[in-house]
């Protein structure tokens, strides 16, 4: 590999690419060539840096300068000032949190300080399309170690000792899963990587696959060795074209290097990987549904047992692990189970990647040790609530997680604590809500997703979720009663209790957690017919304040449905039956005479 004095790392994740980060890289390369620096300075497209909300991001190494919001036209400045003169471009440096001084070294800013990157260790650091860069970061060393120094049982033992639990949502101990699969005898076994990331707003798996595909391939081979499988399959949704392309490149490179295929690293171990594409059904993230989809069947779950480890793909023992889980495996082998299990809480070891979204300053991807509190994540790493608004709730665990509140902020995040609080880890989505959010509407929003994504196999999920959504809609329209709230609760509990798979067993969580934590908002909707956050349009009422109206007729002219009447220079009046609550009068009035309640 050639040596360079300086590396310009341009984020090549899907988010930054959608803001033309590839053009930035191109411009930087052109500038560098124009200045004749191509032998000393290299421009690399890497995986995701995590600070997606501030993208596109460019990092200059070894100076560790972190530029955000970069545009292609910034390339000449970066090259002229930083690359040539060694002066950081102050206006592009990440400011930590709003209003503070720019921070040149990401180690010292709030976003990065408390993060530990294990699954994302190479994301934003190496060129994901170059296997040599992965190898330079100890890539495939763990596989080598397993094949030459460890027995399959020892590998399983290491994973068990590490305390690694499934990152896809279930939190099932990974080592135990491997052990069961290794015990079941069969002529063929399969290792499946579940890359069917479906939670809206979640993109940790995509980022790992885009930023560090080899870590997943290596882990799958390790798993194959541990459980006695020779075939790996990656089930990935077709909506991830960049991840698919990088995986394909990585698989080819690994085969060329003899790291996949026959006689890997000169041993008798053989293992290869194929790709399977999903059509984007959320339920196909459930492992039995995923397997059916790979088999060409309808993507719907079946009862467990039998577990895939006994009878999975094509009826053979199959080990299904999520991308993030797999990405942690090589590090565990390299650094030891003891090192990994020293991070985290008693029952949840290591780190977890979260996708921060919603009303939070640092929208993006973070990886923190288990046991980090919600407060640290939201207010330190996340940089607090947008526009200085007040924090109201955080939804963890994706669409079927629960909404946690102020009183839960000091909970140490791990699998068990989140469940105890009425939510769940899920795959790591975290949606932050502020005081403007109506919690009944939030529950309705999430239900809309699960109604859409239910496979329809079992009655409680197929029909029950629809009924929940209908009742929530009914309530947000001001037609609910107190008895409806009890019915909402009962339906939710029964759907959880009787549904066939994890989707239905968790889909009512947004309803149950908002009922538990925001009962007052529900009561306001049903008994006072008011939406405290002013989000439910049907419950809003626009009126004209008698004393303030000067009769300018601006509102009447703005009203699209002629709901406002009144003579010039006389007080105007809004006909509530005609009003469609569009808010045009409120915006037009220069005298603050229109009142919303």
């Amino acid at each position: 590999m050639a040596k360079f004095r300086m590396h310009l790392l341009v984020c090549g994740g899907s988010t930054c690419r959608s803001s033309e980060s590839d053009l930035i890289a191109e411009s930087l390369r052109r500038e560098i060539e124009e200045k004749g620096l191509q032998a000393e300075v290299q421009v690399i497209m890497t995986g995701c840096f995590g600070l997606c909300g501030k993208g596109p991001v460019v990092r200059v190494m070894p100076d560790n300068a972190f530029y955000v919001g970069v545009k292609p036209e910034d390339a000449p400045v970066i090259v002229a000032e930083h690359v040539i003169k060694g002066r950081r471009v102050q206006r592009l440096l990440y400011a930590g949190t709003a209003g503070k001084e720019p921070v040149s070294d990401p180690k010292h800013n709030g976003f990065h300080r408390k993060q530990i990157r294990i699954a994302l260790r190479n994301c934003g650091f190496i060129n994901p399309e170059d296997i040599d860069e992965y190898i330079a970061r100890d890539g495939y060393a763990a596989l080598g170690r397993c094949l030459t120094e460890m027995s399959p049982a020892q590998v399983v033992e290491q994973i068990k000792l590490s305390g690694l639990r499934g990152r896809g949502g279930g939190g099932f101990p990974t080592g135990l899963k491997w052990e069961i699969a290794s015990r079941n005898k069969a002529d063929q076994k399969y290792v499946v990587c579940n890359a069917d990331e479906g939670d809206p707003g979640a993109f940790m798996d995509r980022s790992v696959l885009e930023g560090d595909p080899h870590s997943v391939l290596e882990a799958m081979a390790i798993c194959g060795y541990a459980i006695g499988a020779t075939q790996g399959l990656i089930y990935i949704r077709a909506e991830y074209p960049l991840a698919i392309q990088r995986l394909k490149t990585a698989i080819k490179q690994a085969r060329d290097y003899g790291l996949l295929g026959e006689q890997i690293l000169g041993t008798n171990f053989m293992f290869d990987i194929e790709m399977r594409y999903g059509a984007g059904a959320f339920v196909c993230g459930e492992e039995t549904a995923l397997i059916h989809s790979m088999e060409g069947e309808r993507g719907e779950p079946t009862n467990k047992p039998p577990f895939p480890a006994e009878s999975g793909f094509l009826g053979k023992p199959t080990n299904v692990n999520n991308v993030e889980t797999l990405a942690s495996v090589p590090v565990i082998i390299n650094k030891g189970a003891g090192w990994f299990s020293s991070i985290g809480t008693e029952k949840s070891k290591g780190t977890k990647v979260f996708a921060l979204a919603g009303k939070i300053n640092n929208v993006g991807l973070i990886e923190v040790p288990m046991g980090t509190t919600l407060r640290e994540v939201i207010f330190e790493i996340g940089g607090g609530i947008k526009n200085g608004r007040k924090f109201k709730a955080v939804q963890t665990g994706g669409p079927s997680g629960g909404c946690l509140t102020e009183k839960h902020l000091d909970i140490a995040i791990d699998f068990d604590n989140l469940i105890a609080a009425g939510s769940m880890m899920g795959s790591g989505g975290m949606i932050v809500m502020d005081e403007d959010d109506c919690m009944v509407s939030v529950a309705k929003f999430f239900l809309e997703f699960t109604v859409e994504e239910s496979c329809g196999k079992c009655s409680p999920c197929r029909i029950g979720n629809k009924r929940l959504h209908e009742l929530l809609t009914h309530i947000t329209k001001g037609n609910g009663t107190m008895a409806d709230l009890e019915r909402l609760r009962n339906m939710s509990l029964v759907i959880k209790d009787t549904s066939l798979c994890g989707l239905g067993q968790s889909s009512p969580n947004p309803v149950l957690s908002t009922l538990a934590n925001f009962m007052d908002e529900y009561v306001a909707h049903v008994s006072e017919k008011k939406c405290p956050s002013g989000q439910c349009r049907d419950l809003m009422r626009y009126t004209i304040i008698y004393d303030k109206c000067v009769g300018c007729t601006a509102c009447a002219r703005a009203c699209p449905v002629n709901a406002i009447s009144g003579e010039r220079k006389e007080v105007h009046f809004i006909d509530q039956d005609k009003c469609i609550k569009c808010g045009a009068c409120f915006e037009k009035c220069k005298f603050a005479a229109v009142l919303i309640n």
Partner: protein
Amino acid sequence: METVKLTIDNKQIEVNKGTTLLKAAHRLGVEIPTLCHMELHDLNIENKPGGCRICVVEVQGRRNLAPACITKCEEGMTIKTHNARVLNARRTVMEFILSDHPKDCLICPKSGHCDLQDMANRLGIREIPGHEIAEMSTYRKDTSPSIIRELDKCIMCRRCEMMCNEVQTVGALSAVNRGFMAVVAPAFEQNLEYSPCTYCGQCVAVCPTGALTEVDHTRDVLRALVDPSKTVVVQTAPAVRAALGEEFGMKPGTLVTGKLVAALKALGFDYVFDTDFAADLTIMEEGTELLTRLGKHLKGEPDANIPILTSCCPGWVNFFEHNYPELKDVPSTAKSPQQMFGAIAKTYFADKISVKRQDMVVVSIMPCLAKKYESQRPEFAVDGNPDVDFSISTRELAAFIKQANIDFNDLPDMDFDRPLGESSGAAVIFGNTGGVIEAAVRTAFEIYTGKKLSRLDFTELRGMEGVRQATIDFNGFPLSIGIAHGLGNARKLLDEVKAGRSKFHAIEVMACPGGCIGGGGQPLHHGDSSILKARAKAIYEEDKNKPIRVSHENPYILQLYKEFLGEPNSEKAHHLLHTHYFDRKAKIIIKK
């Protein structure tokens, strides 16, 4: 066998490992309600998607309730089947299902036979909370020649899908759409008509609700009966007499032949005949064809077309036309008994009683829904006038009898009219799997060997196993026979024929599990396979009690040949009693 001990509703039980909670509870007399689950034990057919969630029970120590139909017993389990949590969950789930089901029970064709209605009653559901705001999943109604699909009533039990795909391997039905709009339908929600559907009706036979029903032709029949210008002739298939009684509260397996004739006469049919007569005729034609082909085969002639396949079953005919068009010359060219009857009734018999073809209406009473489609095939009509005008199912006949204020149980036994009402025991057993080939063997043996059979009961051809085989000694020549019932089993034998590996000389296929006694038009068995066994037994009993037990001794058949047809397989017989088959692969189309 390893056993496990567990406690269900405070009662201890020890069961074999692998037993489901549902079966273990049943042994203790605890009947856990089920809806989607269905098992035809003797036929090895089971539907258990675990989808309806009505059978949920509490397993101590588990977070969620477990479906009893698919959860296996484990050592030390403690199960509660009716505590407050379980009962509330079961009721709520049932309310969900009902909230998405039309409430038109009063006029639903399945009313009174509906598993969902029974369950609502059993669980004491008296209201459906929130139904005023509950949206229903609605679909386009689909009417095919045999089957009506009213999917608003589908509860996604998947029984039809299991029958169509796993048992019949027809593949016309599968789950489509997702979530609230998920439903079982042909691909792309196509009409059944453009799918590979064979109209075997097994989907209808297992549908717990009114989602799948037969096309009702009883009003057409009534119209013919009241028309003074029409002479209405009715034929009844063998399997009908072994099942019709069930619709009137009789024990399964009660033979009601005499009452059936009396009821048809009371309904006003001018001539009450028996499809069995035509079954005897089929044996004459098909048996002769078998012997001809066999003769060629023994001489080593290339166009022998051995094995010969039976062709009585219209579901089976549709199946090979859709799936094995390249083999369309292999089945016997003999028409089915229903169509032979129609062809003879509207020629030979019409002449005899001096009625013009267009003034005669032939009605068939069939255990079958594919017969409806068969009767409508254009090749079975003369100048647009069909040989069989209307085919109605056993169930439709029962409803018709009830509408006509006939007290079926009180009817005297009456005899079929002559000449098309006389039949042999060989014809009766056409209703059971293995029956057609047994009847053919009885006749073919005596013709081939010139000897009288010393025994008429070929028990080696009988039974409920899906694929059976037997070798019959034809005077030193071992005639190898294969039998399949259920189209999935037929596929196995057909694949061998296609690959040139079949060792059989003759193969009988019936589309429905159990044969016609388990047909798609029969009274619903509700998953009780003992009903099918009782019907089969009744059919063999009827055979035993017949004075004539081989087709070629039926005097009216002999008379028919003498007066009208000449010889079996004669030119006239070929014209009236034989047919040919079509490649229907092209009929399966994707229409937008």
